[in-house]
């Protein structure tokens, strides 16, 4: 009884959120809308990371790198060799001659990143906790250098400029509105997919492996299959997020997805709540707005240096660990409990 009440409440909340998302463009200006587009993008990336680290227990300090892969895949496909040539670089012959529609590139970016993530997950099977964290950390640090090196694929240090996306079918909406909706609809679809995965057999297998691999094996779960799957899906999500990011940013270069981002992604997942889908939105909001508010806190009439943001982030993360290890999600659950109890009583 309780479970279905929680589910119904959850669906109501999601529906309400959906309404808010749909109506938001009417209420806010262009710049704010862009910020909320980034929230959607981070939401997608954090969903992916939560699947890997929260539900499956594999630490990734390198998700920014997967976003970079997705971003670059999308960017070079959108430009095509002709687009590259315009920038005066020497593109690889692997790339198609003309650009591909951005909307397709997002899906392709997700697929490509997912495959690469899956391939990364294979040797990662041999690495436990610490070593895996190191390996992913290393990937995140190395990615900018690698992208600079292979400039015939990536445009090198100069980066790639992307055209503003046009809405398809001749719809009359501005690029920023189009992107906003594109990002949020994608986020919604991917949220649904994540929810189905997590509550089903796959999710149970993931959690079983996280909580005790030996026990999971004895209940018939093949950890290798599920762990690499988690890597693949998680990085696919990051790839999609990266692609959207590149398009929204209209520019990508090796420093668009720095090490800091990888670290803050992990921090945000924890702040939102590991292995909980409800907190991910909090994580995404924090990731986008905390740096801004740390610098110019709205209530205090003070302005701090740019470096205040990471300090606040770090301190918030530590406070969460001390006081609220379940992250924002556990707080939400605690607040929702009386509501759920009330609803159960009414229903029962």
């Amino acid at each position, binding site marked *: 009884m309780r479970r279905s009440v929680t589910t119904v409440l959850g669906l109501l909340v999601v529906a309400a959120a959906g309404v808010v998302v749909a109506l938001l463009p009417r209420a806010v200006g262009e710049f704010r809308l862009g910020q909320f587009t980034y929230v959607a993008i981070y939401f997608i990336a954090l969903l992916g990371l939560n699947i890997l680290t929260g539900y499956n*227990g594999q*630490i990734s*300090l390198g998700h920014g790198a997967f976003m970079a892969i997705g971003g670059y895949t999308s960017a070079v496909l959108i430009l095509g060799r002709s687009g590259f040539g315009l920038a005066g670089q020497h593109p690889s012959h692997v790339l198609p001659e003309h650009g591909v529609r951005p909307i397709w590139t997002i899906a392709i970016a997700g697929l490509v990143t997912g495959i690469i993530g899956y391939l990364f997950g294979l*040797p990662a099977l*041999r*690495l*436990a*906790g*610490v*070593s895996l*964290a*190191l*390996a992913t*950390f*290393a990937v995140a*640090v*190395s990615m900018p*250098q*690698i992208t*600079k*090196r292979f400039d015939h694929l990536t445009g090198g240090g100069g980066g790639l400029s992307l055209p503003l996306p046009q809405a398809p079918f001749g719809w009359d909406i501005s690029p920023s509105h189009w992107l906003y909706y594109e990002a949020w609809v994608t986020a919604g679809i991917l949220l649904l997919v994540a929810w189905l995965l997590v509550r089903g057999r796959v999710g149970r297998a993931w959690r079983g492996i996280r909580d005790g691999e*030996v026990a999971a094996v*004895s209940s018939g779960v093949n950890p290798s299959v599920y762990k690499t799957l988690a890597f693949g899906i998680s990085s696919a999500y990051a790839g999609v997020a990266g692609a959207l990011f590149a398009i929204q940013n209209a520019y990508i270069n090796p420093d668009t997805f720095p*090490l800091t981002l990888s*670290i*803050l992604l*992990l*921090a945000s997942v*924890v702040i939102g709540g*590991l292995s909980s889908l409800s907190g991910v939105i909090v994580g995404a909001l924090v990731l986008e707005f905390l740096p801004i508010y740390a610098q110019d806190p709205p209530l205090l009439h003070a302005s*701090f*240096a740019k*470096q*205040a*943001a*990471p*300090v*606040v*982030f*770090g*301190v*918030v*993360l*530590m406070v*969460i*660990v*001390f006081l609220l*290890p379940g992250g924002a999600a556990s707080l939400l659950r605690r607040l929702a409990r009386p509501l759920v109890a009330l609803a159960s009583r009414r229903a029962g």
Partner: protein
Amino acid sequence: MPLFFTWTDFAQQITSGLAAGAVYASLALALVLIYQTTNVVNFAQGEMATLTTYIAWTLMDRGLPYWPAFALTLAIAFGGGVAVERVLIRPVEHRPELVIVILTIGMLIAINGLTGWIWGPEVKLFDSPFPNSSVIVGGVAVSVRDIGTFCVCLGTVVVLWLFFRFTTLGLAMRAVAFNPAASRLMGVRVGWMLALGWGFAAVLGAIAGMMAAPSIFLDPDMMIVVLIYAFAAAVLGGIDSPIGAVVGGLLLGVVVNLLGAYVDFVGQELRLPTALAVLLVVLIVRPTGLFGRVHVRRV
């Protein structure tokens, strides 16, 4: 490939590799010290080292001569390390590993931001106690600074080894690393042993930072790459083996230098990724590292 291969060149790459490797070894040993006793990788080790190096810089900027500033910084680092363990780590001692790792990542983020906030992001020059000259050893010109760095770092490691081998406190700390529960039954205050471990780790970090700063220049992100190399060295040597950390550090320093100098593909930019690729290969072949203990999982 450099135009001519000379033995002089080769020897110089090796010595500078050993110097860099000594720095990696110090920080790697710090990581292993903490990992041995608490099963936690302190992601903030590099940032703690940066912070103490900045403190040294400030002391010298205010007029304190090098070696007194060095010594004072080590004392501050020790105290800081002990304080961090008692205040921040102890309350969450019994939580799962992942949680404590996240805490150290929080510390990483916060300390990195803090150093940038207090001292600003501009690069600062940091003095070396050793002159920037060369000495001819066996027909090869070797940098005095490299020799100095190597000796200071390895010297510290040796002193620590002597401490652990011959003193009561050192024995107690080793006992705690092997079997904390049994140590308690021997009357050991395990908590304070852990705190001491953090203190020593912080000292190692400070030394690594102060030895590296003259060459890689002091800025808030100075130790991030060093941390990765140290991390790699520790894992390469076996995350629970102090010897492994030192050997791994030196080995990594030399190999990275040689690869960077002699393999065109690697050049200067891909040194780190290549080193890590090598590390990954080693790990796949031998997951517990060169000197690590193989853990049998019993069901």
